[in-house]
């Protein structure tokens, strides 16, 4: 009776930093060589007062 969901969505960080607020979405880049022709891989994180939290499942 539950519907099978597909695809993905941008993470919503509004309640993802536990007791800390405000919690907002940031993009984080991994360290990689500046001479690399490809862009660095990026991930989303939730952030509150300088501390990072993982994003909820989408």
């Amino acid at each position, binding site marked *: 009776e539950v519907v099978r969901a597909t695809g*993905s969505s941008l993470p919503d960080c509004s309640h993802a930093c536990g007791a800390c607020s405000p919690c907002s979405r940031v993009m984080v880049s991994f360290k990689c060589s500046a001479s690399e022709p490809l862009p660095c891989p990026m991930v989303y994180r939730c952030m509150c007062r300088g501390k990072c939290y993982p994003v909820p499942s989408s």
Partner: protein
Amino acid sequence: MASPVLPAWSSIIIVLVALAAVPPPCCRAEFTVVVPDTSSAAALVHAPQTGFSDRARTDPAEQRAVQEVMAATGNGWAWGIPDVCRGRWHGIECVPDRHDVYHVVSLAFGALSDDTAFPACDAATATLSPAVLALPHLRSLFFYRCFTGNPQPIAALLGRLGPASFRSLVLRQNGHVGPIPAELGNLRALRVLDLHGNQLTAAVPATLQSLTHLRMLDLSYNRLDGPVPRFEFQRLSILDLSHNALQGGVPWSLGQCRALLKIDLSQNRLTGTIPDALGELSELMLLDLSHNALSGPIPAALSRLASLQSLILSDNRMQFSTVPDGFFAGLKALTTLVLSGMGLAGTIPESIGELGELRVLRLDNNQFTGVIPASFRRLERASELRVDGNRLVGPIPFGKEMMWRLGKKLRVGGNEGLCYDTKQEGLEGVVALAGVADCDSVRSRTTQHLVWSNATVVSRRGGVVATVTSSAAGPVSRNAGGTRVETAWLLVFVCLHLAWFVAL
């Protein structure tokens, strides 16, 4: 498609790296750049998802249950969230039904790492709230290092979670005490049961035998005793019962679990022999039965395990068991072979040298006699090779490149009869040879020269190196009829020679 966007992004990142020479205090050291996610709208579109609807709301009863479970672990902040499935955090998953009602399917607690932290528990006060039973669609519960300051038994009420839908129960390193509740056998749909690293006691309940869909069973690092139950799980791929106090034998029924990839029963008190039935597990990649009280012999049936990569049988008392020479012919995938401290006798099988994938080979602290097979030169991928603490004789067959490469990971010590060939250049400073005599000096001291030089001659014809060099009257059974007479003569000759030496 997005190619014009990406180079632009990379140049922004480079500029930011240059500006922010000191990485921001957030996140871990591998991360260099943190960008507020406002400009990303151009790169990614927040498109509607198939199956999800903006109108969906969480089932009110489940909302309350989640908030109670959260509060019981010390995460009272969840009371302030108007809709838990819309305002999710890392550690809750929801799925909507056709009526736009969200149901909670997964809850997780505990900081695995800074990077993927689920809500942390207040270890001193955390408890499991019975409100989990009000989550009828729950498929997965995960608690890691959660109740450690407040040790509790595993709640029997978990056996009342949805028998048709509940798939995965992970209670890892939570400080749980007492026995595994028999009620867990009611979770008929369970795929994963992981109770690793608690203080669980008593026997594994027989009711777990009804978990026929189980794929992974990890009860390792507890204090469980009693026998290994007779599991016959067609889909089980991981079985880890290591580091307990389990007794009795390795059950034959494991041979019926045809999907097994890993069996780890190490560090228990298992007795009896290794069942031949394990030879049926054609998918098996790891078999670790080390640190038990298993007796020999090593069953020949194990040589059929063509997928096996790691065979670890060390520290079982198999006094004077031998390993048949052809044993390793079928184990083509073997990368790790550990047979240390088993009291194995006879010669080291030549066929080990045919294991082209072998990385780690430990045959140390046994009673192996004879020479190190010349075929060991072919173990070009080996990164660790131990034959120390045996009764091996004769020259070490490895080339100097191999000895230099292995360094300290090559151990040949504790074999009084082993020596190295002085004719080989460049052996000065090879760590493994410290304390090992050179063959010339050994030749001049003893008659072993005669033993192995003759043995080499004979071995070219009949492969009897072992029987000749193991002077302790090893049986001459494996020779072809022709070489038997010759060997008998040789033994007489050796005996006479020894007698002559003693007389001197």
